[in-house]
């Protein structure tokens, strides 16, 4: 007892001292303007990718809405695609799931699995005011909304500033500048562009950029709509330029079998000068590796076209059309909650990364990549989808095959373009309505 008495001041002091370092109690009040939550205890089964930063924001939501439990099941990218597909066929879809857009989300919309976010629902949950029009436009399918956009992610060229400064290379503003920069880097023994081409989609980013440059925005969109021919001089030029860059050694050796995760470290090690990537590298890679994001500068890949466009896509939360109404309300409330600007500014939301689809919202100053890209999507540039979301999935393989065959030299650019167009013609014949 004497020991406890003598230690008591120490224990009390330590408690007070320790509590001064605890996270300040976050605001547990729901944001204004959102509808009331459904009554009673509601559980929302939520599927999303394991590396996404949902944990803290789910905890924050739980404080504001204690009767709603968001149960997050984590998947890798391919696992999530598989799980959604299998569960849709067996009638066991989750209540809410993360999804990309374009032809990756279309099956779930066309199959009647995703709840339509009608204009009335969007107004009720404030989504028409909180989500940027660019994000809403990208998310629409046949003119209707079937998900709540969370991120808008441009994919473009990042260059290593310190390396460019070392070799006196100016920031590329035109296509010619870009090729000059690549030539200079190559002459200094640095790989101009780091690519991990194992799954083909990373190579696709370069191919898409080249098609945007040679074909222009209007024709590029027509190609995606299958209204223009891939067997055209513009596409052949783009394919030929890809082959030229491969032959000049502008990509890392053996890139076509390299995992994409192995590409960015080449920039860390100054073995490569540029990479086609997206804003997620700021939070998931650069900041996590305790590197300076200011050294990895994102530029709109200079396609020399008007309007100025950058490849990009939105990512969204989709809600099951078959869940009970109270679960749908809870899921919509969660999506609306995290889309509020005041919530997006909290520490808990920071882990979600940027750029967010929230209108007028800018990331923190210590996130230069997210800030730059957010400014693009809020005014400076339009977006076009990447091929693997713009084309029907049945044609994506044909595109990857054509592109990779050019890289390997097993097909000429002309033959690859013809092969791709044949695949389009076969697809259209098989899907005549």
């Amino acid at each position: 007892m004497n020991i406890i008495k003598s230690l008591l001041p120490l224990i009390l002091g330590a408690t007070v001292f320790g509590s001064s370092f605890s996270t300040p109690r976050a605001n547990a009040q729901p944001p204004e303007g959102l509808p009331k939550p459904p009554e009673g205890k509601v559980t929302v089964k939520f599927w999303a990718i394991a590396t996404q930063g949902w944990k803290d924001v789910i905890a924050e939501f739980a404080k504001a809405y204690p009767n709603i439990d968001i149960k997050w099941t984590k998947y890798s990218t391919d696992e999530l695609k598989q799980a959604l597909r299998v569960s849709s066929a067996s009638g066991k879809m989750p209540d809410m799931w993360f999804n990309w857009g374009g032809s990756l989300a279309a099956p779930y919309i066309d199959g009647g699995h995703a709840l339509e976010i009608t204009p009335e629902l969007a107004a009720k949950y404030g989504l028409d005011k909180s989500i940027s029009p660019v994000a809403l436009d990208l998310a629409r399918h046949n003119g209707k909304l079937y998900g709540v956009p969370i991120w808008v992610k441009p994919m473009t060229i990042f260059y290593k500033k310190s390396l460019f400064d070392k070799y006196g290379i100016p920031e590329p503003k035109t296509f010619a500048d870009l090729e000059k920069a690549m030539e200079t880097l190559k002459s200094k023994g640095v790989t101009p562009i780091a690519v991990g081409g194992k799954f083909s989609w990373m190579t696709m980013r370069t191919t898409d950029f080249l098609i945007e440059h040679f074909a222009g925005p209007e024709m590029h969109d027509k190609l995606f709509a299958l209204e223009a021919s891939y067997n055209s001089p513009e596409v052949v030029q783009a394919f030929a330029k890809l082959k030229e860059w491969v032959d000049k050694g502008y990509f890392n050796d053996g890139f076509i079998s390299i995992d994409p995760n192995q590409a960015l470290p080449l920039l860390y090690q100054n073995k490569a000068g540029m990479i086609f990537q997206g804003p997620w590298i700021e939070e998931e890679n650069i900041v996590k590796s305790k590197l300076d994001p200011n050294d990895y500068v994102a530029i709109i890949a200079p396609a020399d076209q008007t309007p100025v466009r950058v490849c990009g896509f939105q990512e969204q939360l989709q809600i099951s059309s078959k869940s009970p109404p109270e679960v749908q309300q809870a899921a919509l409330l969660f999506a609306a909650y995290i889309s509020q600007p005041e919530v997006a500014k909290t520490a808990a939301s920071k882990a979600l990364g940027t750029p967010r689809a929230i209108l007028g919202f800018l990331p923190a100053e210590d996130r230069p990549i997210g800030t730059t890209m957010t400014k693009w999507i809020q005014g400076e540039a339009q977006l076009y989808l990447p091929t693997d979301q713009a084309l029907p999935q049945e044609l994506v393989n044909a595109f990857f095959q054509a592109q990779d065959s050019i890289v390997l030299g097993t097909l000429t650019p002309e033959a690859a373009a013809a092969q791709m167009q044949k695949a389009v013609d076969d697809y259209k014949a098989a899907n005549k309505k």
Partner: protein
Amino acid sequence: MNAGEKAPLVGAGQASPARQDWSWLLPWAFLAPALLIYVVVVVYPMAYSGYLSFFKWDGVAPTKQFVGLQNYFTLLFNDKVFWTALLNNAIWLVAALLIPTSIGLGLALLLNKGFRGSSIYRSVFYFPAILSLAVVGLIWNWIYLPDIGLINQLLGGLGLQSLQHNWLSDPNLALYAVMVAAAWNAAGLPMLLFLAGLQTINPEILEAAQVDGAGPVRRFLSITFPLLRETTLIVLAITAINSLKVYDIIYAMTYGGPANSTQVLSTWMYFLTYNYNSVGQGTAIAVILFLLTLIFAIPYIRMMGRE
């Protein structure tokens, strides 16, 4: 009937219906739980896959379109990647039957001599077999890296830069590069099976042959190998069936690339079903794969049944 008279038999030659023998049901009763699980987990999915192969379906839409044999015709006459995959499976089958089984047999013959430390070597040679193929793929991916991979670094160190290669980027080499990794993993099981088979051979037969002047090669060809016939058949059957199922190491190492050059039937089936929304064509490949597997599975099962 009068007292004392016996009741007539119920029909001449007819057995009494009073007690029937239900003992034949007993084995089925014991088999029933396992059979139920087998039907639910194996038979039903197989049958449903076969059913789906007659439909055009993206795996998500609530309705399917019946197309009959169209998926099979598309694969056989309009899908170059299917034929690439089939050829790759055939190459893989031949290589798997020859390479890891020969390595396994060779290791078993060496280890059967029972020298000091042979049990340690047995563990060392068997170790790769306990790794999952996905892990094997990861390890060998690093070994094959063009710049910093072990193989190219070794070749460079030995002054053999001309032999350095982009092993997994070359469509002519990639499949064989993956086979090397698979053989490293697969040699352990045949080694154990052959070792067990060698233990059953009476050493006196070999000693007698040695006394009669037969050399080691002669003893192997005329005595050891013939006596290993049954073990060899088991190893070959298991290897053949496993080679048709190859999937994870291809997925981990090359993802079917570059440009679909290392696709095998299992990986192409996965891609069509899960990546390219063609469930009908994917399940059609599953049916074709099943029929090909039966070619090896039926003789194997009959052989095991005879024993």
